[in-house]
C-alpha cells in the first residue's frame, strides 16, 4: 500500500473514532443528568425527555459529520 493511501486510511479511522469518543462522553453526561432529574421529579419526565433529545441532537451533530467524512475517506 502506498504511503498516501495509508495516511488517508489512518485519517479516516481517527475521524470516526475520535468523534465517537467525544459523543460517548457527551451523551453519557446528558443521559446521567436526565436520569438524576427524573429520579428527583418523576412528573417532569415527558418535558425532560424532549430536552434530552434536543441536547443529544446538538451534541450529535459534529461527530456525525466527522463519521460521515471518515467513512468517505475509508471507502472511496
Amino acid at each position: 500500500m502506498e504511503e498516501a493511501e495509508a495516511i488517508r486510511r489512518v485519517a479516516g479511522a481517527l475521524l470516526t473514532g475520535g468523534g465517537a469518543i467525544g459523543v460517548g462522553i457527551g451523551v453519557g453526561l446528558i443521559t446521567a443528568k436526565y436520569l438524576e432529574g427524573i429520579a428527583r421529579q418523576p412528573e417532569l419526565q415527558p418535558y425532560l425527555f424532549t430536552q434530552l433529545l434536543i441536547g443529544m441532537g446538538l451534541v450529535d451533530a459534529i461527530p456525525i459529520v466527522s463519521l460521515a467524512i471518515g467513512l468517505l475517506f475509508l471507502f472511496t
Partner: protein
Amino acid sequence: MASKELNSTDYIEHHLTNLTYGKCPDGTWSFAEVHGKSQVAGTEASCNISEMGFWAFQVDTLFMSVLLGMGMIFFMRRVAKNASSSKPSRVQNAVEYLVTLVRDQVQDNFTADKNPLMGPLALTIFVWVFLMNLMDLIPIDLVPWIVNGFAAPNAEGGAIHYFKVLPVADINAPMGMALGVLILIHYYSIKNKGLGGFLAELTFQPYGKWMAPINVIFEIPGFYAKQLALGLRLYGNLFAGEMIFILIALFFGGFFSSVTGVLAGVAGLALNFIWAVFHILVVILQAFLFMVLTLVYLQQAHEHH
C-alpha cells in the same frame, strides 16, 4: 448483467453523485459528464461537475424535494377540505394528531409575542424534512434502477444513469433550509428589536459596550455557527445513514456467485434490517430537532432585553 465490472469504490461513488445540470465554462448548459460519459443517455455533456462551479443544479435533489413538498401540500389540503367533526376519517385523525404534536411544541418553545406564522412554519418544516428523510428507507438501488430504464448503472443503453433519491444527503437541500431560517431570524430580529437593538445584542454582550470589538469576535461566530450547525446536523446524520446503507449494500455483491456470497448476502439482509429500524428513530428525531431548533432560534429573535 453488466457490461463492465464495477468495483466497490465505483459503486459508492455512483451513489454519491448527483444528477447535475449546469453551465459549463464554455457557456453551454448541459448535464454533467462523469467518467467520460454524459449522465443522461442521448445528450452531449461538455464538462464534469466540478467545472460547473456556481451554476450547477442538482436536478434529482430539486425534483425529489419539490415533489415531496407538493405532495404534502395537496395531501394536507385534501384532508382539510374533507374534514368533518361528526365523522372524522382515519386519515383526518392521523393528521390531527400530527398538527396537535406540532402545535404543542410551538406553544412550549415559542413563548414570545403571538406570531401566526410560527405554527404553519413549524408544521411545514417538520413534515417536509420528515418526508425527505424518509426517502432514506427506500432501498438504495431501487429508484436509480427504475430511472435508468430497469438496467444496471454501468450497462450499455439505459436512460438516466445517476439519480440520488435522498435530497437531504446532498448538502444543498439542508443548507438551503437553514439559509431560509437564517433570513427569517434576521427579519424578525430587526422587526422586533430594530436594527439598533439587533446590532446592540451582537456588540454589547457579554462585556458591556466599551469592549465592543471583543464582543463582536465572540458573538458573530456564535450567531452564525448555530445556523451552520442546523443545516450540517441534518445533512451529516442523513449522509452518514445513507453511507452505511451503501456499505451494507456491498454485502450483496456476490450473491449469485458462491456460497460465501450467499452467506454475506444473508448477513447483509440482517444488517440492513437492524440499521433501517434504528434509522426510523434518526429520521423522526432529525425532523423534530430541525423544527424545535428553528422555533428556539426564532424565539430568541423575538425576545426583548
